[in-house]
């Protein structure tokens, strides 16, 4: 079974600010990712990459600014000149158009692999159980794990767990998928299998935003490379430009360390 890719979504971040107490994590970020594009977000740790990604599906609330997906603001609504927070129920519904893949997988250990993938469509009433299971089997086949459907997450390797997590995110048939350092918790030899699944996904024309330290992967797959430092975008553009001819000294310094 092949899943028809849902209409790829456009993501826009408008003037995002966020602080934890006195510590300012995001200092006014504007970013546009057009439908079907793959954006790679790079930068030193503590630069606000993960916070920015988590703000996109409102796992983090922004202090100032907002994120919109297909021009629909996420987690807030415009009220005249001001932004008002939406209710939890509406935010949960909005999140269903966004897939999120965590660094530490966060599969539900008490549910089988199949139930993990099918949970989203069933709980949200998108599909009845049999259809959701068919969908889940199809997605597990796509990430090469159809034979593990009955297993429990802790019985799988890290790479397999992350591929299940990707299938779980895809089960929502989202317009955009966010990846938060999807290979950072993996043994080096398992990184490849996860990256190749993400690569295949990029080829289907889904909008993706990937926080990563894999420079080679970013160069190969991304349409847009974004370099973040101290809560600001220092540079953005085609990977060939940002990664190979960085204009900012801070970018050059970072790339010389990770390459």
């Amino acid at each position, binding site marked *: 079974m092949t899943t028809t890719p849902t209409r790829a979504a456009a993501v826009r971040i408008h003037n995002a600010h966020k602080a934890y107490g006195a510590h300012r994590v995001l200092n006014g970020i504007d970013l546009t990712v057009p439908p079907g594009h793959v954006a790679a977000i790079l930068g030193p740790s503590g630069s606000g990459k993960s916070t920015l990604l988590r703000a996109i599906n409102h*796992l983090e609330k922004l202090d100032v600014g907002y994120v919109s997906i297909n021009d629909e603001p996420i987690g807030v609504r415009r009220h005249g000149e001001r932004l008002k927070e939406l209710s939890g129920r509406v935010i*949960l519904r909005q*999140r269903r158009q966004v897939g999120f893949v*965590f660094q530490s997988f966060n599969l*539900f250990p008490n549910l089988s692999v199949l139930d993990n993938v099918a949970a989203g469509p069933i709980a949200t009433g998108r599909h009845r159980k049999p259809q959701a299971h068919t969908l889940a089997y199809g997605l597990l086949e796509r990430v090469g794990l159809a034979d593990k459907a009955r297993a429990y997450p*802790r019985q799988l390797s890290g790479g397999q767990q992350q591929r299940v997590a990707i299938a779980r995110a895809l089960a929502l048939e989202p317009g955009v998928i966010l990846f938060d350092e999807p290979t950072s918790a993996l043994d080096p030899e398992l990184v490849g299998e996860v990256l190749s699944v993400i690569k295949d996904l990029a080829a289907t024309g889904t909008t993706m935003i990937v926080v990563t330290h894999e420079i080679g992967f970013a160069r190969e797959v991304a349409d847009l490379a974004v370099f973040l430092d101290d809560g600001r975008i220092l540079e953005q553009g085609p990977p060939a430009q940002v990664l190979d001819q960085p204009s900012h000294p801070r970018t050059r310094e970072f790339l010389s360390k990770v390459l």
Partner: protein
Amino acid sequence: MNEVDDPPTTVVPTPVRDPVVDGRPVPTQRVIPLRRPGRWIATVVVLVVVAQIGHGLATNRFFQWHRFGYWFTRPVIVDGLIVTLKVAAWSALFGLLGGVVLALARLSKSPVLTAVSWTYIWLFRSIPLIVLLLFLYNFGALYKTISLGVPFGPTFAHFDESRLASDMVIAIVGLSLNEAAYAAEVVRAGILSVDQGQHEAAAALGLPRAYQLRRVVLPQALRAIIPAYVNQLIGLIKSTSLVYYVSLLDLFGSVETLGSTYPSDIVPLLVVATVWYLILTSAVSIVQFYVERYYARGAVRTLPPTPLQRLRAGLAGVRARYRLEVGR
């Protein structure tokens, strides 16, 4: 790492040979486990002590085992046992339900709910159960009637307190109030033990709140809740003996009253109560094992064996070793 560039090598099989130390070959297969004479001596000592205790229990005329046999299943004892079971079961149920509500209130973001829950737990953990029970017993003298309604506003329902509260109800209410305070902390600890990443993943999938709780959070929390709650439950079963002081004839109450009628039988009667309490707590422990095993699915790679499976595996091991010894 460039395996492709390496010239093809032919693998020459090397014959497996035992390593040689000081000109003598060292066998490679089996390691003989260390002998542990200390462990054997300790085992023998413990067995002797256990046998002595068993002998003492069986032969000491102090216990009057024939009187134990006489009393053990007497209707008056069984009636008391049923009262104990009723009080324990209802209090366990209401206590757990109250505990879940209190725990959710304590974890909520509303400062009022948190404060009310905290105060309840503080108060009812501080009052000795016997004091609480006697207080409730005398409640009827304090409040003749109970009314349900809006404070300073209309009244919806009206009860005559003395008719509403039988001794059984007083006992169950008292134990439940006390149990809920403890259960709340057990449930709260369980919910806190669930990894933050699980909440985030459930939220990121847009799962409805009730579904998150039912399918993701509670099943994982139960792994931490069950052992602590069973501990609580065993304490509760024993606490039911206090209801005798609000004139309810439970297992302990029956034994106590019979003891004053038959003073020479007090020891066998106490043994009767002890054995029944042992049976109750054992039943709870057995249920605990299987419930825990059920909720361990997914948390461990392989489930722990049941006692029967362990016994079978043990016997198989002994048989295998025996065969090995004989074969040599």
